[in-house]
């Protein structure tokens, strides 16, 4: 450090005030000056407090302290690793591979720390063979426009985690795919074609549960449909207006970690 460095000057001034010449010259190493001892104790206490704070922040059950937001409805009991799975390799290997990728010496990128959360992480608890709108189907070319608008090929597009809600997409999303809906033998007293023509997209979820996981029968009377408000409350995390009974409740533990 240069003599005129501000940091250097500060150290000198502190020493000049705190340490007497006798204390410095008493022997080669000499007794520790009182101020230096205080400083060491202070640093030690600081390190201990910082460690304690870090332990408290990352202790099991305290995830809400470090999470970017409130967990979504039904996810309150999950810990971070329920969704955020460790990336392959050690930290050193991940840094090496990442650096090589940035330098063009490696073909594929790597995740650092944790791998990206993907559909498979959601389906590890929520996989349902009867799903009416399974996300994989939206990877088909004909859904390109819908993908541009709401990216339905990813669970997290409609269920953005750490939002404190259940569903984070606007409740009129059916319009992205069902704009040409017509039914030959329409069971509803107000035809689906009329509802589509009048763009009453907020009414769809009044009768239809998107994934089909509720044990229910859709009404044939439009007047009996659930209100847009009750659907919005459900989106926000309130109880389901459709039915209490589920065809397949979510697993309590990831399917891929059960064995």
């Amino acid at each position, binding site marked *: 450090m240069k003599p005129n460095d501000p940091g250097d000057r500060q150290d000198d001034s502190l020493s000049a005030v705190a340490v007497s010449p006798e204390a410095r010259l008493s022997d080669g190493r000499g007794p520790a000056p009182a101020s230096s001892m205080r400083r060491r104790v202070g640093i030690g206490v600081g390190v201990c407090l910082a460690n304690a704070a870090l332990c408290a922040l990352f202790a099991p059950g305290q995830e809400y302290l470090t999470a970017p937001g409130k967990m979504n409805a039904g996810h309150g009991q999950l810990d971070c690793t329920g969704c955020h799975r460790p990336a392959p*390799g050690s930290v050193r290997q991940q840094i090496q591979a990442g*650096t*090589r990728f940035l330098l063009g010496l*490696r*073909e594929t990128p790597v995740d650092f720390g944790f791998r990206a959360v993907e559909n498979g992480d959601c389906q590890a608890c929520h996989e349902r063979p009867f799903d009416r709108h399974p996300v994989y189907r939206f990877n*088909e070319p004909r859904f*390109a426009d819908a993908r541009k608008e709401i990216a339905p090929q990813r669970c997290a597009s409609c269920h953005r985690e750490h939002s404190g809600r259940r569903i984070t997409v606007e409740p009129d999303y059916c319009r992205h795919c069902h704009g040409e809906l017509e039914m030959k033998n329409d069971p509803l007293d107000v035809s689906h074609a009329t509802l589509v023509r009048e763009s009453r997209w907020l009414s769809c979820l009044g009768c239809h549960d998107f994934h089909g996981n509720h044990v229910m029968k859709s009404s044939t009377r439009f007047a009996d449909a659930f209100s847009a408000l009750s659907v919005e409350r459900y989106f926000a995390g309130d109880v389901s207006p459709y039915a209490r009974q589920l065809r397949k409740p979510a697993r309590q533990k990831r399917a891929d970690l059960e064995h």
Partner: protein
Amino acid sequence: MLSVVAPITVYLFVSAPAALPEASAESGKRLTPHEVLEICAAENAAVRELYAKDIVGAGQQVGLRFDEKWEQLKVNAGPLPALFLRETAKSLSRSSVKLGLFLGSDSPVNKSNRFFGPQADALDQMRRDGESRGFFMEDVKLYTAMFPDFAVAPACVDCHNQHPDSPKRDWAMGDLMGATTWTFPSHSVSVSEMLDVIAALRHGFQDAYTRYIEKAKSFSLPPEVGKKWPRQCYCLPTPETFMQEAERRISKPTLDRLLSHR
């Protein structure tokens, strides 16, 4: 500065642990996505033909029913061939092999399966030359290939001609009824990675057939499940027997295709 950078560099790169393997680290001959999907489509066509003729067609003769609402609890029926494919696709969606499979047409029974855009164009071209088509979907970074889907069994033609929602009622055997669409994320795969793809696909066929057998066991008059086929009795082969027959039909053509890519 050097005293900080040098030890970190040594720690990270000089005394390095084994490098993380690339997603595709194997050398040797590699298959293009279209070659991968050609093999998959050929296997799928053969297994669907087996299912359509030997399970659905023969089964209808002995009293087995197949219905689009086969999953509903009180429906004593199995999946139609198109829905058998969808079950296979569902199984693939759960696999670590990112293979996508879809079925569609320009005249589908279910309007939600109607092609438009690049898929409709590809089907038009297929009607002219019967050849598969491939393209890349930039938004999802998926290689895509479409393969013609012909009417291979009377069960296909009869069902589509008689269904009240069918927009076309004059299908005949051998007609191009639609197309399968396949997606795959990698721009090339090694032969051993290809084996993983084939294993996932065959697992998908077995999953789809197993779901049917599980449902059949709940019928009010459950068929016998064993080594016999519907052409012999009111019975169904076990998933193992079904897959043995499927593999007998598909393994040699697949091996020949793999050898041709050496």
